[in-house]
């Protein structure tokens, strides 16, 4: 890594933040321990995620198809592998879909009909930082306004994740069971 993460024992302030993470995320991932160098940065980063709202405007399937694509397009192996490890089974992702999330397109035969719109949204936001009239017409009516807002915030947060993970060269967590797909 280009910047050393904190190592235990952590300050009381940092430990209190780590204690709020789910037990299955312990010990904390390296992007958290490097952001913890300034606890204000860690706190802001964690707040910025709207992935786990209860109730959510999105199903787990919708969220994970979208985030695998967002992280896949960024070539963010660190976060893509975490998502595949923790959520791919719950989201019903198949092996061809996992591979296509990185290297495929919205038109690939492996996707379900409802997945394609999410892949296109991730792609347009990645490539243009906006949404075309054609895609908007498709989103509007099939997703609630709030679901669209949640998706836009998710794309932004996980792009920030990519800047940290790729920019600082955070390695893939050794606990994950799937490697980042090869081209």
């Amino acid at each position, binding site marked *: 890594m280009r910047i050393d993460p904190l190592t235990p024992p952590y300050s009381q302030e940092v430990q209190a933040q780590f204690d709020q993470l789910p037990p299955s995320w312990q010990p904390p991932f390296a992007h958290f321990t490097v952001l913890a160098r300034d606890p204000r*940065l860690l706190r*802001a980063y964690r707040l910025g995620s709207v992935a786990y709202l209860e109730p959510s405007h999105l199903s787990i399937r919708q969220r994970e198809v979208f985030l695998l694509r967002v992280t896949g397009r960024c070539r963010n192996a660190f976060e893509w592998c975490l998502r595949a490890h923790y959520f791919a089974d719950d989201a019903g992702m198949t092996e061809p879909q996992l591979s296509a999330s990185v290297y495929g397109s919205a038109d690939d035969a492996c996707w379900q009909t409802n997945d394609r719109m999410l892949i296109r949204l991730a792609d347009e936001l990645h490539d243009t*930082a*906006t949404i075309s009239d054609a895609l908007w017409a498709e989103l509007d009516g099939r997703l609630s306004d709030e679901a669209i*807002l*949640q998706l836009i915030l998710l794309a932004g*947060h996980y792009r920030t994740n990519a*800047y*940290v993970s790729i920019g600082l060269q955070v390695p893939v967590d050794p606990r994950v069971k799937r490697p980042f797909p090869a081209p």
Partner: protein
Amino acid sequence: MRIAPVNAPFSPNVQALFDRLPASWSPPFKLFTVLARDERLLLRFTGSAVSYLEPSHVTVRQREVLLLRVTARCRCAYEWGMRVHYFAEQAGLSDAEVYVSVHGDADDANWQPDDKLLVRLADELHDTVSISDELWTDLRTAFSEEAVIQLLMMAGYYRTVATIANALRLPLEPQVGRPFPPKARPA
């Protein structure tokens, strides 16, 4: 606008947030009132900004050079224009520098040496979602490790701002918004 913002009266949590914002940001921007459709989205979004930390790891000038470039590269006049309105003078940015944040590049003669590094950072993140070894070496000569992390988080956050504004077709804010400068003809 593609999604209708919420109008006053706001929920107590949203009103409390708006009461904490600087007086000069009132009435609240549509960026905020549209996210207020679900107050959890608004509160998480505003709480995750690291641009106004006190103390900060970067100067106002460093922050604003980066953010003008990030928002300009995203073609987001909505946020770019407000940054110019609120911060260009405090950041000591000349009209020529404001202009090249949109129409120039890192090699433009108008930039000061430290500025060039921030423009390169915004450009590499926008274009490649990574930082080359050459840029990394230069960054670490000029910035602390914490400053680099703060810059990365700000670049990501303001891409999110730009995406919201672009995707929802937010119109420029009255009084404080301004469009991009037209591209000048070559002399």
